């Protein structure tokens, strides 16, 4: 049994190969002829068996039969028959060898192909597992990164809150009347701090957008109210720069839209704040209207304007118009990227148009009602 098992493990073509289909080989438990190592046929299909049967029939007819009938066989006939059987055996052997070997080659190629496919499958499976593992690792890393950004933002915001709080209280005269010449530096500290807060918020937003962890809190809201409140918040900066900021309200109030208040406020804030930042003369005009069943906000400025190249790159992350290098400006170009992503989350559209450098620009925000 042990021997049988050992044979079974041998491959076709090897001396120890045992053809389980062949009755003769199975009974003998070894391969009687060399070519049996290549054969997988059943016993009744065995070409050597056919040869033996044919030989026996020949011997019987040409040798045994005349002997039985006539009581003797001629020596010449005996020699002729045996020579015939041997010569026939030789040619038979030669031709069938080729046949069996060809079968063996075919079988070998098939096995190699199967082996290759199996190995390929195994490799694909292994690679898929590795990829899955890497993906899990990446997800973990991504979550850790988001958590890190949340914590880091918290740590950054704490001192910024203290600065904002104390400066605002000083400006509100909580600690008594500040000296007159202190007022402007205090305001500047306050505004710079506001920029830093905005930057931290933008970074936090970008990190969440990239990680797909940005969530929406939808409610019915009035765009006019938000624009008014943003304009109110920015009026001091506008005053400092000596430019104007006009909100031309529509004659008929716009319908309320279903949107995330904080995000829409930030979009409008980023766009208007951006327009103010790049406008040194003139000012910024805001309009809003209904168009094709959508609310459309227009923010036009008389500022630096935009080239075609800038217009195409405007809403990508970390980009800024060339005016950003010509003029003193704050920010690293995250604002418009965040704005675009927020607008897209509302199935809206944001784009900019400009007639060229120093010819001002207009930003459009289009939001569906629902």
């Amino acid at each position, binding site marked *: 049994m042990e021997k049988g098992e050992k044979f079974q493990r041998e491959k076709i073509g090897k001396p120890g190969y045992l053809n389980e289909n062949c009755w003769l080989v199975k009974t003998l438990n070894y391969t009687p002829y060399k070519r049996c190592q290549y054969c997988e046929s059943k016993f009744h299909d065995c070409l050597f068996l056919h040869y033996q049967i044919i030989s026996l029939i020949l011997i019987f007819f040409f040798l045994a039969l005349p002997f039985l009938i006539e009581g003797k066989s001629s020596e010449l006939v005996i020699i002729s028959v045996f020579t015939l059987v041997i010569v026939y055996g030789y040619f038979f052997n030669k031709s069938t060898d080729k046949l069996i070997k060809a079968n063996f080659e075919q079988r070998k190629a098939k096995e190699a192909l199967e082996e290759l496919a199996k190995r390929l499958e195994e490799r694909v499976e292994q690679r898929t597992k590795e990829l899955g593992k890497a993906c899990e690792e990446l997800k973990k890393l991504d979550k850790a990164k988001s958590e890190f950004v949340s914590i880091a933002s918290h740590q950054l915001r704490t001192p910024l*809150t203290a600065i904002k709080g104390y400066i605002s209280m000083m400006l509100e005269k909580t600690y008594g009347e500040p000296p007159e010449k202190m007022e402007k530096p205090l305001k500047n500290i306050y505004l710079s701090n506001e920029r830093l807060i905005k930057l931290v918020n933008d970074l936090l937003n970008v990190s969440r957008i990239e990680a797909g962890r940005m969530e929406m809190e939808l409610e019915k809201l009035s765009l006019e109210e938000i624009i008014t409140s943003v304009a109110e918040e920015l009026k001091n900066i506008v005053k400092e720069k000596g430019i104007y900021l006009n909100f031309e309200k529509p004659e008929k109030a716009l319908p309320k839209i279903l949107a995330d208040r904080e995000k829409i406020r930030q979009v409008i804030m980023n766009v208007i704040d951006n327009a103010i930042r790049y406008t040194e003369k003139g000012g910024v005009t805001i309009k809003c209207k209904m168009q094709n069943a959508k609310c459309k906000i227009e923010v036009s400025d008389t500022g630096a304007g935009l080239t075609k190249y800038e217009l195409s790159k405007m809403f990508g992350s970390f980009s800024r118009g060339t005016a950003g290098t010509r003029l003193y400006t704050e920010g690293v170009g995250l604002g418009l990227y965040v704005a675009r992503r927020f607008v897209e989350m509302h199935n809206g559209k944001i784009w900019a148009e400009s007639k060229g450098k120093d010819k001002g620009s207009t930003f459009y925000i289009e939001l569906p009602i629902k």
Partner: protein
Amino acid sequence: MKKILLVEDEKILAEMYRDKFTQAGFEVFLAFEAKEGLKLAEKEKPDLVVLDILLPKENGITFLTWLRKKSETSLISVVAFSNYDDPETKREAFRLGVKDYLIKTNYTPQEIIEKIKNYLKE
């Protein structure tokens, strides 16, 4: 005089808000940790708790859970007031009945006073 319990671990911020709230005419109780805050809430029964979320040892969410479990403090109004604005934490805070979740950097102390006055009117 309305009572406000401020649970805030950052000493500088805690003092700043305490000064502002006191100046605005509130009686302010200050706690630097969740356990301390809970004890003060039980003792003083404040009209409003202004609660930081990231606190040492137990966080603001744990404080809220404790507060809601005790019958004598379960109905106290709470406003979450933190610079940590993780969406999941926010959701959890609202589930535990906070009136609002304010991000500190977005408001000046004066704006917070206005907000508090509105919450107390409700």
